[in-house]
């Protein structure tokens, strides 16, 4: 059957916007899927050479090594501010941040809220895996009640540690936001929808329709302590009820555009 492997028959290959680098993410970690989707969109929209990415602090701190576009590294939580600085002086470039739940919803809470409030024409890809991966599995602002982490060893006690934060819902309330959606990466159908959302988010930016964010429910097999395949099920069973998928804000101008 290998005689099928001809250029004319090729229906999918690794996107150009990913560098030829083996990434450091754990096997089965959905960061890789998110990276790949962004890269596919950069390829399809042909915007790679005028895109600038802003990497966070977290497991994806080395994101700048994996994309074939200009990239800068922000301090923890500050990516939306850094992206603001870049986009304001380079308005014709596409600027996106890629942030985890600690980076965006904990230390970076002020920066993300105000970037959305100001309606910065940037795109934020928010990887929500309900845990702090890079530092070894501590509680995140998005950790579920009762979820065991290394800093909530008996399970998150809402009396003491409060409740998870739903960023898509909160940011959708900002008048400056143009496209705020939550998708998931746990199965093929949802991955396809996630890719479409990333595409729409970049379109939002390019059309100057305000702040855009795609929150992507993601897995962390290593720190959840289960296999990659079990993680997909855990996400579906436990995270989606707390973080419902859907469109939380879609600018009317965007809705009118056929994408």
């Amino acid at each position, binding site marked *: 059957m290998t005689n099928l492997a001809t250029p004319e028959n090729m*229906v*999918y290959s690794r996107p150009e916007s990913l560098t030829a680098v*083996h990434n450091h993410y754990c096997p089965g970690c959905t960061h890789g899927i998110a990276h790949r989707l962004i890269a596919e969109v950069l390829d399809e929209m042909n915007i790679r050479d005028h895109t600038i990415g802003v990497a966070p602090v977290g497991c994806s701190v080395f994101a700048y090594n994996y994309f074939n576009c200009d990239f800068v590294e922000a301090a923890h939580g500050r990516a939306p501010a850094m992206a603001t600085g870049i986009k304001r002086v380079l308005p014709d470039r596409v600027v996106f941040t890629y942030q985890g739940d600690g980076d965006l919803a904990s230390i970076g809470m002020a920066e993300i809220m105000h970037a959305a409030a100001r309606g910065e024409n940037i795109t934020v890809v928010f990887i929500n895996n309900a845990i702090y991966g890079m530092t070894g599995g501590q509680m995140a602002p998005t950790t579920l009640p009762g979820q065991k982490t290394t800093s909530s060893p008996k399970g998150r006690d809402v009396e003491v540690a409060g409740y998870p934060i739903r960023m898509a819902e909160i940011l959708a309330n900002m008048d400056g936001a143009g496209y705020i959606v939550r998708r998931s990466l746990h199965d093929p159908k949802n991955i396809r929808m996630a890719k479409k959302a990333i595409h729409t988010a970049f379109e939002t930016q390019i059309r100057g329709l305000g702040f855009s964010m795609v929150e992507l429910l993601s897995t962390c097999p290593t720190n959840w302590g289960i296999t990659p395949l079990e993680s997909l099920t855990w996400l579906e069973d436990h995270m989606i009820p707390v973080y419902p998928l859907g469109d939380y804000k879609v600018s009317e101008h965007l809705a009118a555009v056929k994408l």
Partner: protein
Amino acid sequence: MPAKGWIEVSDMYCKGCELCINACPQKVLQLDMDRLTPKGFHPAHLYKDGCTGCAICALVCPDAAITVYREVTKKPVIAAGGA
């Protein structure tokens, strides 16, 4: 008749995470337990016929390790003058 497909899994990127194996609707993927990638993973591979080139494996692959081929079946061309 289902399409005929073929995939190549790159040893440079595959981490043997099994997401593709789980997602494949034709169940034609397995880890190759007879060899290791340079990083020490058992890579995924086609272990029997039946791949339709649907590319769902590539869709779920976190490492963009998969290239997918699907046989192009040309429709028969009806001659201009009728036959």
